[in-house]
Structure formats: C-alpha cells, structure tokens
C-alpha cells in the first residue's frame, strides 16, 4: 500500500480522527451445498466450507469533514467495509473505531451518529408517505422540533422534495426515491454519512443535484462522507481524497490531486473506427499504450504516457492500420487513471 497522506499518520496515533480502521479483515464462510437429496443428507453430517476473504487487512483513518471516495471494482469489498463501519457486520479481525465508538459493540449508539444510503435498498418506510417517514425519523433519532423543521425545509428546497412529500415511498421513481433517501440520511445531522452507490441508475440532472447536496452538507456541518461509486464523475465532483481497494486490499490512498499529478502525464485518445473484426494494437504501440474498450462497436480509447510518446505518433500509428471516422484527445480523467491502477497496480 502506498500512502500519500503523511499527515494521516499523526491523526492515527493521536486518535482524534473520525474513522479509524486498523488491520480490518472480514472473512465470509460459505457453506458448500452438494446438490440433490443425497447432498442435503450429507450436509447434515459433514459441512464443507469455503472461506472468502472480502476485506483483507485494511488500514486507513479519516478525519472529520473529509469527503472520501472509496472505490474499487465489483466485489472488491467496498460494501463489506461500509457494513463493518456501520455496525452491521462484525469484523473477523482488526479494529474499527467510528467517532470513538466500536460500531458492532455499541450498535445503537453508533446508529445515532451516522447516516447511510445503500443505493440498492430503501431505508424509508415503504408504505407510508415521505412526509410521514420524516416525521417518524424525527422521533426515532430524537431530533429537536426546531432543528427538524429547519433542516427539512432546507432539504425540501435543495433536493426539490416538495412535490414528493405526500407520496408513499413505493410509488416513487428511482431518482425521486434517491433524493428522499439522501434527505433521510442527513436529517438527524449525523457526523458521518456512508453513501454506498447513491447515484446508481440516476439521470444526469438528479446526479448533479445530489452531488451538490452532498457538498453543501459537508460545507455547512463539516459532515464526514465516505462514498462508494462506479461513477468517476461523482468522485471528481465530490471527493478530495480517494481510497482504491482491490480484492479486499488497499491499492491507493491519497488525495485526488496527487493521484492526478502522479498519473497526470497520462493521455487518452478516443477513436471511432471502421472496424472489420477485432481491434489489435498496432505493433509500434505495443507495450506503450493501453486499450480501453468503448461501449459501442468501433469505439476504442487508447491511454499512454506523454513521457513515452506524443499524441501525434499514437494517432498516426492507428491511422496507418485503421480507418477512423472521428477522434478526440481527452484530458486525463480519473476514470482512466483508476482503470490503469486496477490493471497494473500503482
């Protein structure tokens, strides 16, 4: 693990950070079931286990007010980490401390100070109107009347919840629901908010609104935010630090600026080619450029380091072998950097 965050260390030792994670590990035991009746009977006597290490000896510490993007490929262990931080899961080993509390030991106390959005699950009350949900949350989190009223008014304004308040949650669209969820997560003014894929499946307008809201809450209350997402635009617009994990291990932990600087000489060129069959990298670019397959037929992106090659050489090498309909030279995006790190390591 590379730590680009030297000042972290001190906080770690002084113990005044918001979230502290040391040697955190989570192993899931999965019972292997043999098929059929015989398997079921056999399962009564002998049990085969496989152990899946979802989070593997993770260390980090997050200070109050930080906006941290927690990113990694599918199955990297992001949700598992967040579940341990929020007290839902007990770690197999290692330490977690959130706000001075060990979450899985003092679940209710921890719950009072955190907020969370799990993109795939609703936390609002399914059958009752949104307004009622907020009323219930007020009592569940014991929010003082005045504070609740003011916060809610502001949320209604910023997230444009007005037209949704009378609707039962089950009748809301995904984007409407997510705006309501977000308000619910921040309603009791938690000091930490975990957002597990809060923008999944949302349109650009809603995403923009949600990002603005998160930044705003951070500015107003110095709320610490830990965000997982597969949308790098979220990261660029919200976070000032990223932690990248892969197969349960931390690959990178540092500021967004320093990763950009470090990989800043990365360039990407997007090609739209008339392809007949598969795209193969021209020999001249072998080992120097990376292929990032695009979403559509014929769309291909190449990333390379501006130290090793210049853009003109890359373009002429490709045009020597393929007919291009269009091409654009892009700024280095965090997305390509992350892709690179997944592929090759730091």
């Amino acid at each position, binding site marked *: 693990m590379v730590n680009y965050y030297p000042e972290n260390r001190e906080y770690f030792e002084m113990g005044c950070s918001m979230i502290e994670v040391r040697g955190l590990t989570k192993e899931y*035991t999965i019972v292997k079931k043999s098929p059929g009746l015989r398997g079921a009977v056999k399962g009564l006597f002998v049990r085969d286990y496989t152990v899946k290490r979802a989070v593997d000896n993770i260390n980090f510490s997050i200070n109050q007010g930080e906006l941290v993007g927690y990113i990694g490929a599918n199955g990297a262990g992001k949700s598992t980490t967040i*579940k341990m931080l929020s007290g*839902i899961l007990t770690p197999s080993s290692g330490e977690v401390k959130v706000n001075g509390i060990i979450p899985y030991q003092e679940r*209710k106390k921890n719950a009072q100070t955190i907020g969370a959005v799990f993109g795939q699950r609703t*936390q609002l009350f399914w*059958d009752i109107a949104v307004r009622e949900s907020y*009323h219930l949350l007020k009592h569940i989190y014991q929010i003082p009347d005045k504070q609740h009223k003011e916060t809610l008014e502001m949320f209604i304004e910023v997230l444009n919840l007005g037209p949704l308040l009378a609707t039962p949650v089950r009748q809301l669209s995904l984007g409407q629901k997510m705006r309501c969820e977000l308000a619910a997560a921040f309603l009791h003014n938690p000091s930490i908010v975990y957002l597990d894929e809060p923008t999944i499946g949302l349109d650009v307008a809603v995403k923009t609104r949600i990002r603005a809201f998160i930044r705003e809450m951070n500015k107003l209350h110095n709320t610490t935010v830990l965000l997982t997402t597969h949308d790098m635009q979220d990261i660029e617009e919200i976070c000032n630090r990223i932690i990248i994990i892969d197969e349960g291990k931390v690959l990178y932990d540092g500021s967004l600026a320093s990763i950009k600087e470090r990989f800043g000489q990365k360039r990407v060129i997007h090609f739209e080619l008339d392809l007949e069959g598969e795209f193969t990298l021209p020999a001249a670019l072998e080992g120097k450029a990376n292929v990032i397959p695009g979403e559509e037929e014929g769309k291909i992106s190449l990333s390379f380091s501006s130290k090793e090659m210049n853009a003109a050489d890359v373009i002429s090498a490709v045009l020597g072998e393929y007919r291009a309909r269009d091409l654009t030279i892009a700024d280095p995006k965090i997305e390509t950097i992350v892709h690179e790190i997944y592929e090759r390591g730091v």
Partner: protein
Amino acid sequence: MRKYWELMKSQIKLDSAYTIWYWSGTASTILRVFVIYAFWSAVYDNRVEITGIPLSTMLTYVVLATLLSNYSAGVGYELANRVRNGEVAIELMRPYDLMHKLVALDLGTKITSSVRNTLPIIILSFIFIGINLPHTWFAGPLSILSAIIGVFIGAQLDMIIGILAFWVFYIWGLRILRNAILLFFSGALLPISLFPDWLQTVSTFLPFQSIVYVPVAIYTGQITGSDIYFSILMQLVWLVVIFGIIRLLWSFALRRVTIFGG
C-alpha cells in the same frame, strides 16, 4: 419510548388507510361467526345443554374465541420477510430495538382491527346472536386483562417462528404446523374443558390455552373464583418465559447476521 409510540401510531394510520382490506377482513369474520352460529345451533338442536354447557354459553364462547383467535398471529411473518430479503441488516443501523419496533407495529395493527372489526362484531353478536354478558361483573375486566396478556403471548410465539427464519429459510411449513396446533390447543374451536381429561392436563402445560381459552373461559364462567387469578398468573409466567426465549434466540440470530452477513 416515544419512538415506539410514534411507530405504533404510524401503523394505525397506515392500516386505517387500507379500506378494502378492512372490509374484507370484517366480512370474513362475520361469515365465520355466522357459520359457527349455524353449526352450534344445529348441534344443540333440541337439547338444552351438552356436558353441562347451555347453548347460549357455548355460542358466547365460540364467538368470542373466534374473534380472539384473529389476534394470535403477529409480526413473525414480517420479520421472516425482512430476514429473507436482507433488510434486517439495514434495521440494525437504526437507533431502535428491532424486536420492540415490531411489537409496536403489531400493537398498532391490533388496535386498529379492534376498533374497526372486533368491537362492532361483538355488538352485532349481542344483538343478533344473543351472546351472554360476562359471567360475573368482575369477570368482565379480568377477561379483558387476560385477553390482552393472551394477545401478547400469541404475538410473541409468532415472533419465535419469525426468528427461526434465520436458520430455516422457508418457514411456511412451521407456520402451518403452528396454525394447526394453535387452532386445537388454544381453544379457538372448542372450550378446552370439553377435552378428555388427559388432553386437558397436557394443555395446562402448554402456553397455547393462554391465548384464547383462558380469557374467554373467564368471561363465560368456565373458569371461576380463585382459578381466575391462578390462570392469569400462569399467563404472566408464560409471557415472561416466552419473552426470555425470544431474547435468547434473537441474540443468536443477531450474531448470525453480523457474522455471516445475513
């Protein structure tokens, strides 16, 4: 405490909104009461009493027992669902106790159905079937107290089945078994005093008669005198025992969620 109160209120509001369910529930209960009335009138035919119980007492018993057995389900189903779709985990992130919350919701539902369903049917039964008043004047309040304890016992037993969902994925089999046992041993069909002696003895060692038989028998006078207090005491003992079992099972279940991830 306030939060559970608010949860209960929200459930009452929610239930009051579903008028179709309300009416279909009421209609099916009225139908059952009517069938029971017709059945027992036919059984008694020209007889004045069967094993010492006159028709009017029998009708009083079976009507009240039918109504009370409506309450014997609880939130176990709800809990089992949440276990299955993984929502239990999310509930653990809330600053409340899930078991208390479920009880609060259940109370809400039961209060709504008492007001909108049970009470009107009892009044109708007084008028049209001519069911009796309580056996003695103090049997009235005591039977209500006993019924409330019984309702709690029923709900808690249901909760046990819900918690079992953590280990047994499909619990409908358990539920059917429970329904059969309840129908018989709670006294929902027949007063337990009509059972053969050995079965009555078995029944006194089970919690099920506390749910229906005890409160209704106090009302109709099959349980009288100091037996009333003894029966209510037994109900309380069962309530405490079952509550203890639930807490124990729940702590195991919690361990399971937090270690295996649901």
